[in-house]
């Protein structure tokens, strides 16, 4: 499958106007990376949506204004954008992040400018670049989700990704993603509001992911993405207090990879046919392969994309090469099938 070639003009413009001052940083000395006419040998398809390659970005770790300066974001399998809520959210107090061994803990609190801004700003820009867009949806109540999904129904987004890991008022502050009944109810409601491929993004903070996954699928999810972050706390041993202002945060990064792969595996064993996007601890093409061999159709790169903006594209390139030596896996992915 040949990728379309797009001039990243929007991203270009942005990088020059994004700051308060002229940073003097610009691609003006002929030293920066150039890529043109990339040809992806190994594509995939997720819930009927073609991805140029099996590697996307994970929500919250991609931002066009920031990342578009570093590479042609349309070359990714897909980009999952930051969770959008019905109105702008301020997020949590700072500090919002801390390091943990082979991982990071974050509690950004879904700060975002709201769905209306997203619809006039990031989404059209991404589509103009030719990106495959997965729009991540956040909400603090069932009504929140419904409002956002309704507004996105006629948008150019390629897929919706319902993040059911946020603490939810309709569900007494627990995440909707931790109760099969509550989740099924929400997804049924959202299903009626859109015909777009709907991915439900699951939380790993559950006793058994299988009944949750099944409830989402039974209620009309076209695909599942997993996992979101694990709940964690880092403590400052000088003060005895949590480093993150919100106390708890979400653990992501390499540390969580074996946990994520186990969840993909278990979900795949229970639900042989549902498309799965594997997420968690992917920072190399080999990590992506672990998810794919566990039964994922595609992957999303999270924390690693914060540590090197081009990481998702690099992983896509490396994976394209590794799949040459794995024709059986590549063939399955191309046809929307999976290894297990």
């Amino acid at each position: 499958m040949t990728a379309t070639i797009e001039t990243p003009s929007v991203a270009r413009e942005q990088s020059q106007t994004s700051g308060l001052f002229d940073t003097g940083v610009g691609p003006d000395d002929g030293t920066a990376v150039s890529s043109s006419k990339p040809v992806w040998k190994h594509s995939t398809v997720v819930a009927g949506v073609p991805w140029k390659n099996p590697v996307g970005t994970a929500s919250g770790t991609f931002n066009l204004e920031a990342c578009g300066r570093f590479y042609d974001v349309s070359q990714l399998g897909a980009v999952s954008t930051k969770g959008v809520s019905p109105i702008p959210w301020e997020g949590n107090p700072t500090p919002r992040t801390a390091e943990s061994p082979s991982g990071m803990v974050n509690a950004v609190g879904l700060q975002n400018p709201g769905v209306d801004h997203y619809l006039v700003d990031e989404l059209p820009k991404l589509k103009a670049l030719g990106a495959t867009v997965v729009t991540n949806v956040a909400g603090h109540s069932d009504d929140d989700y419904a409002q956002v999904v309704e507004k996105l129904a006629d948008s150019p987004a390629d897929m919706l990704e319902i993040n059911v890991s946020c603490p939810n008022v309709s569900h007494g502050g627990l995440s909707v993603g931790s109760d099969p009944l509550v989740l099924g109810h929400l997804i049924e409601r959202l299903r009626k509001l859109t015909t777009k491929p709907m991915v439900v993004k699951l939380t790993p903070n559950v006793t058994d992911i299988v009944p949750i996954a099944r409830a989402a699928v039974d209620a009309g999810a076209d695909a599942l993405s997993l996992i979101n972050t694990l709940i964690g706390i880092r403590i400052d041993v000088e003060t005895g207090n949590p480093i993150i202002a919100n106390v708890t945060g979400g653990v992501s990064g390499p540390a969580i990879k074996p946990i994520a792969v186990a969840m993909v595996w278990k979900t795949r064993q229970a639900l042989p046919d549902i498309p799965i996007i594997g997420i968690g601890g992917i920072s190399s093409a080999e990590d992506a392969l672990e998810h794919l061999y566990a039964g994922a159709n595609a992957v999303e790169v999270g924390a690693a994309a914060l540590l090197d903006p081009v990481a998702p594209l690099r992983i896509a390139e490396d994976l394209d090469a590794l799949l040459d030596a794995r024709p059986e896996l590549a063939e399955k992915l191309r046809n929307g099938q999976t290894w297990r």
Partner: protein
Amino acid sequence: METENSQKAFRSTRTALADSGSGSGSVSTEGASDCARSRFLPSRRSATVCSVEMLCDGVYSLELSDRYMAHHAHAGQFANLYLHDTARILPRPLGIASVKGDVVRFIFAVVGEGTRQLSQARIGDSIDVLGPLGNGFSLKKEGRYLLVGGGLGVPPLVRAAQEIRQLEGALSTAVFGYRAEHFADNIVGEFSDSTLSIDESEGNVINLLNKWVEDAESTGPGVRAAMDDVEILSCGPHPMMMAVAQWAKERGLRAQLSLEARMGCGFGTCVACVTPTRDGLKKVCIDGPVFTVEQLGW
């Protein structure tokens, strides 16, 4: 034999400078010069250690060779440094302290394990970097700059002095406060037009600033006119910068302040580093680290 090398987390890839135009995978790339419209900023890459020097107990100077950064770094910008210890994944943001040819200098204190590991680097080692990042100080061709720095806030002001030295009609006075040893006086003295410094046993930078005004006034009339030209660039601990902002406001002086924040990415993606401004929350890493006192509403 099975490969567990899936853990080669965060290896640095295509170094934009070192091998622009050669992707590690299948994406065919062309020489950057061929295709001006599709060029991008260099991403994370590895830079070579040119020198490591202890300036005083626990404070180090580290020089890295990185052509791109050296040629694009403005005063007040910073770079992400990454560790070889792949368990410590987050960037260590450090201000760019000076530039010479293709070499960029950082000055940092060992405050934790990451900076400790950086202090152990040896000449010839490679260190992953990303940058320059952020919006630096805004400098006009003319004017008189007071560079007010505290502790490990001095590095970006050293770079400011270096840039001001290159401007025609501008002058800089470094006003540095240290905890103990005056480790950067020599370094900034290479670039600044004059240097005042103080340590905790003697007082603080506000004392120095007051003294500077007194001295200026004692040189006779015309001071008021001269004061219109004065702009403060400041970086240091939060309480110091609050005091500097106050001091500047009382005298009607412009002031640009460089903030610190815990960062997840350093280039505007993760929204970890926000600070309140009069225009709402702004990202310190990309909207800052330099803000004016007015923007901050301090």
